[in-house]
């Protein structure tokens, strides 16, 4: 069975070249192309390619972020990054055993990479991004609705609330469920997001008010006018200190 490949690059000549090389390689077919990250995610959901050739540098949604979001899919494709030059990325790719190709791509290397293409997981991508000094944090959170992927801009998010199994994201466009631990979200989006409870991580910029419920017991009201969120005793001190320090700006 031949590999179904999606080509993602913001530059038309780069896409053309990869498509032509793919046509010359046996056992693979190019099923589509995308010129930016959003198109890439849509194409992945619609075409279900087995392998994605993904440019690291793209405006808007970068290749690294697209790859992170792809891991949300039920059956994520294998990813091979392409890059013209990135001082720090190559070492990180090697370390995390992530497939990559240098542009201009050689046909033999492309053929070999397609043979060995493998899926990558979120945590190892996060490590690559950090080591490569690319986006250390995502600009969006991705949720899956059936086979479609939905992107929520991080600046629209009010809070993450952990349930038994899932995390609920409350944002300007409503509520969604994601499958990521609160701890990892806290690490990624700190200091813009503050932990106020074992099961709640809130966006500092969207805090409307902090109310005292009883002595030593606080609740936070967010800008979305939903139910106030309870602040645990353990996190109250930290939250109040940060808000006091934040007042000047």
């Amino acid at each position, binding site marked *: 069975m031949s590999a179904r490949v999606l080509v993602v690059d*913001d*530059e*038309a*000549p*780069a896409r*053309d*070249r990869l498509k*032509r090389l793919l046509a010359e390689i046996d056992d693979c077919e190019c099923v589509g192309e995308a010129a*930016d990250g959003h198109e890439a995610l849509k194409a992945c959901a619609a075409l279900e390619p087995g392998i994605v050739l993904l440019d690291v*540098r793209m*405006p*808007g949604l970068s290749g690294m972020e697209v790859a992170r979001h792809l891991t949300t899919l039920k059956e994520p494709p294998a990813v091979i990054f392409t890059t*013209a*030059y*990135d*001082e*720090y990325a190559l070492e990180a790719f090697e370390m995390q055993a992530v497939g990559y190709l*240098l*542009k*201009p*791509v050689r046909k033999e290397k492309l053929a070999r990479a397609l043979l060995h293409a493998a899926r990558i997981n979120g945590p190892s991508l996060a490590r690559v991004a950090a080591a490569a*000094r*690319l*986006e*250390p944090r995502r*600009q969006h959170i991705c949720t899956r609705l059936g086979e479609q992927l939905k992107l929520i801009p991080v600046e629209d998010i009010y809070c993450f609330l952990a349930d038994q199994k899932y995390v609920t994201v409350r944002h300007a466009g409503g509520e969604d469920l994601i499958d990521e631990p609160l701890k990892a979200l806290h690490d990624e989006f700190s200091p813009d997001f503050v932990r106020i409870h074992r099961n709640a991580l809130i966006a500092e910029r969207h805090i409307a008010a902090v109310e005292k419920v009883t002595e030593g017991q606080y609740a936070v009201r967010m800008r979305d006018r939903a139910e106030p969120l309870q602040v645990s005793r353990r996190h109250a001190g930290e939250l109040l200190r940060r808000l006091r320090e934040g007042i000047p700006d």
Partner: protein
Amino acid sequence: MTDAAPEARARAPDTVTFFLPDFCAARATLAIVLIVELVAFVLAIARHATQASFWIDLASLSLFLLWLGLSSSAVLCRSRNWLATMSAPRAAATALGLLLLTIALIAEIMFQTGRLWSRGLVGIASIFPTDHAGFLLRTIAIGFIVSALALRYFYVSAEWKRSIELEARARIHALQARIRPHFLFNSMNTIASLTRSDPSRAEEAVEDLADLFRANLSDARTRIPLKEELEVARIYQRIEQLRLGDRLQVRWNVEDMPMRALVPSLLVQPLLENAVYHGIETLPQGGTVTVTGSFDGSMIELEVRNPLSSVPATKERRGNRIALDNIRQRLDLAWPGQSRVEVTQEGGEYRVLLAFPYEGPAA
């Protein structure tokens, strides 16, 4: 040292570039011994050019002067870190003061030792001085002259070494600033793609790339007519246009500029490259770079504006200072104190303004 935070490093004494060498090291000690022996020779020759007592005199002078020299060297070794925190003239004056104190102290000890010793042993008396005030004064005077000369020597040789290093570093910087690997490999990729789909455009792209590299490899100090400089920038634009297509638009408002004016080469192209790399490339829809030139009869002003992405730049994109610093340095080298480089960023727009005097072609 390498692990220190940048601020801590800036405040710490700059012992690496300090003009006094490390007197605890063998090299500097050897230099001191040589200086001391030369002075001993000069003094011995001046006193007894032909007499038989020359060698004895030289030996006793050497012994005394080595004491002076090595003690001075020890004092400088211990106080080097402290001296390195001062400005060069102050450090030199302080070092000289320290040396004179050391010399006076050693000479005094010497004199007292000689006096104590010569009471018991008559034969030794002749090699020790007898005139207290005269001996101290002569020692200090000679010590002053020799120390001052030695300090001057160390200063000049350190400056010479530093200027060589600076020049080498400036050259490397210039090279790094000029050829951005990102641009090179992306252009290669574009050409590889065009070779089959559009061979004639690929050919043009290779020619353009060659011209651009020729301009890059020319001496950074040469001045070229503004017309040629703008042409280099247009060649760069053509190459990037192949890659970015309609995403890159450049508006050239340069009709009012004196095209015959001589300017340092690579003034405009690096600014355009920065605008593409930090601006246009990061915008999904692309944007327009505006190059505006004006001339009031004496000063030429050149402005490059580009839109910026609202998403904060990632770390790797924050490297545009090198090219700007390089341009600032070269303008300052060409017209010391008469040029200016202004950078402003507001409302999602990045703007660089260069202003420099008009210099026409030689008649």
